[in-house]
């Protein structure tokens, strides 16, 4: 490719043209705009500036071992009044139906700023030992460890909930330093290390949840770099986790999704500004019933509650796992977002909703909030 001198020359000329012509406003302008959005228009949207959907699997996989209805994932305290999503009908459905929310991968509050024992990563330059996390991150002179995802459930069947977390090590340095991920389980109020999920060579988590029966289900990028996602299921055996099942979903089996969103008017209530955003996810590909990662990202802490899942944590990012629609159909996810009392009314705010099924098929949508 690089021997194509004519092409190289053409691109060089194009880049030179841009260097001589482009007049970017500068970083100060970007900072000013970011501050303006933070102060006013995007104030609530400090709560949910973006919704990102990441593909997690395919229909044939999910149908096998992810419940398609009534799955309450990791609700901390199951209640008789828990709402269960309707079971998708095999007949043709004309309109979107509520998505089944499987899990919230957002690290719970007790973990976000906890001090926990972290075993050594299989990568040089990674901190380990007893690490003190702040806002889901441990940063030191030798590198950083970040909480990529977490799930709550009783994995060791002792009657109390445990936390399973995917920790990613970023040893630092410029360029493309490889990262390493390990999935660990912590138990009890002191978050004692229970065990490590033997994933082996994991570099990215696509989905993570604890089933009601305590099994850990993990979706991850293929270790060989080929497009596709591997779903593995692990079970606590008394002294460690064992892999009991797994499915490899090739890239060409990954469906295509399109996302749109619509907010209701922002309401001023005694507790602070709040709004509801209905996100619609349509499966435009040939495959059905994939688990999707739905991430709500913001710049300011806010309460985000999702129908069917108790997710009251006050923080700036929420990661959910939902069951995607069947091919050609759509599901909706209703997000209720609230800012603390005294926050600015976000008149004219905009919300970006984006879908990242495989990065090749990216879909996004921007909506404006109305007072």
């Amino acid at each position, binding site marked *: *490719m690089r021997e194509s001198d*004519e*092409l*190289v020359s*053409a*691109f060089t*000329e*194009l*880049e030179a*043209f*841009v*260097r001589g*012509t*482009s*007049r*970017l*406003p*500068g*970083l100060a*302008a*970007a*900072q000013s705009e*970011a501050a303006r*959005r*933070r102060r006013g228009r995007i104030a609530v949207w400090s709560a949910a500036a973006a919704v990102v959907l990441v593909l997690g699997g395919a229909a044939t996989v999910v149908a096998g071992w992810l419940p398609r209805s009534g799955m309450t994932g990791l609700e901390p305290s199951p209640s008789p009044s828990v709402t269960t999503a309707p079971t998708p009908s095999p007949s043709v459905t004309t309109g979107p139906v509520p998505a089944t929310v499987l899990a919230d991968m957002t690290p719970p509050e007790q973990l976000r700023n906890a001090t926990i024992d972290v075993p050594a990563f299989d990568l040089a*330059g990674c901190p380990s030992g007893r690490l003190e996390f702040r*806002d889901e*991150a441990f*940063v*030191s*002179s*030798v*590198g*950083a460890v*970040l909480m990529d995802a977490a799930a709550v459930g009783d994995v060791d069947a002792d009657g109390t909930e445990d936390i399973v977390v995917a920790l990613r090590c*970023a*040893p*630092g*340095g*410029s*360029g*493309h*330093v*490889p990262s390493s991920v390990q999935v660990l389980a912590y138990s009890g109020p002191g978050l004692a290390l229970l065990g490590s999920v033997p994933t082996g060579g994991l570099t990215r988590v696509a989905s993570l949840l604890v089933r009601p029966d305590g099994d850990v289900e993990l979706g991850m990028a293929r270790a060989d*770099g*080929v*497009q596709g996602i591997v779903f593995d299921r692990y079970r606590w055996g008394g002294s460690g986790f064992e892999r009991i099942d797994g499915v490899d979903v090739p*890239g060409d089996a990954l469906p295509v999704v399109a996302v749109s969103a619509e907010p209701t008017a922002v309401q001023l209530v005694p507790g602070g500004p709040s709004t509801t955003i209905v996100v619609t996810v349509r499966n435009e590909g040939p495959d059905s019933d994939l688990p999707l990662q739905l991430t709500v990202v913001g*710049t300011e802490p806010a309460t985000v509650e999702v129908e069917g899942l108790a997710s009251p944590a006050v923080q700036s990012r929420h990661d959910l796992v939902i069951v995607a629609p069947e091919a050609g159909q759509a599901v909706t996810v209703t997000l209720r977002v609230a800012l603390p009392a005294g926050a600015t009314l976000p008149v004219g705010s905009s919300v*970006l909703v*984006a879908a*990242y099924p*495989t*990065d*090749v098929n*990216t*879909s*996004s*949508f*921007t909506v404006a909030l109305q007072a």
Partner: protein
Amino acid sequence: MSLTQPSGGRRHAQRGTNADLDEVYEAHSTRLVAQLYAYTGDLALAEDLVQEAFVRVVPRWSKISTYDDPIGWIRRVAWNLATSDWRRARRARRLASATREEHMPGPSPDRVMLVQALAALPPVQRRAVVMFYLADMSLADIAELERVSENTIKQRLHRGRAGLAAALSEPRSEVGHA
């Protein structure tokens, strides 16, 4: 935080500062504009995309700066914007208000040909070509970003290059009118 690792082996020790981000902006923003110009064929839009990407990076920089490849993250944001409804909405607003920058010099025939030839490529081929030639990304890096295999990227580059070669070899009068 330093984005280039000094000889002393300093890593991502601290969270990023505004000074760090300023360095990143100075070093990479124009290159990003060039890449997105090649992809979209619209310089003003490319500038908007890059600026919007940095607007979104600013409040998250303390965390993004700890990532393995913060520049890659910014690039991905800009590219995602380029393939999103944000891009279409921005383009529509620009067309509606007819605010095309006046400071831009007239395009040269060569550049017109290249941009037009790029526009004729399928988006996946265009992305691969632009990332390879303008972003200086390796096949492995492009494959990682696109979440496909290196062989797929090789294929896209091969086809993209063939498409560009065919278009650029056409008589100039057919595409260039400047």
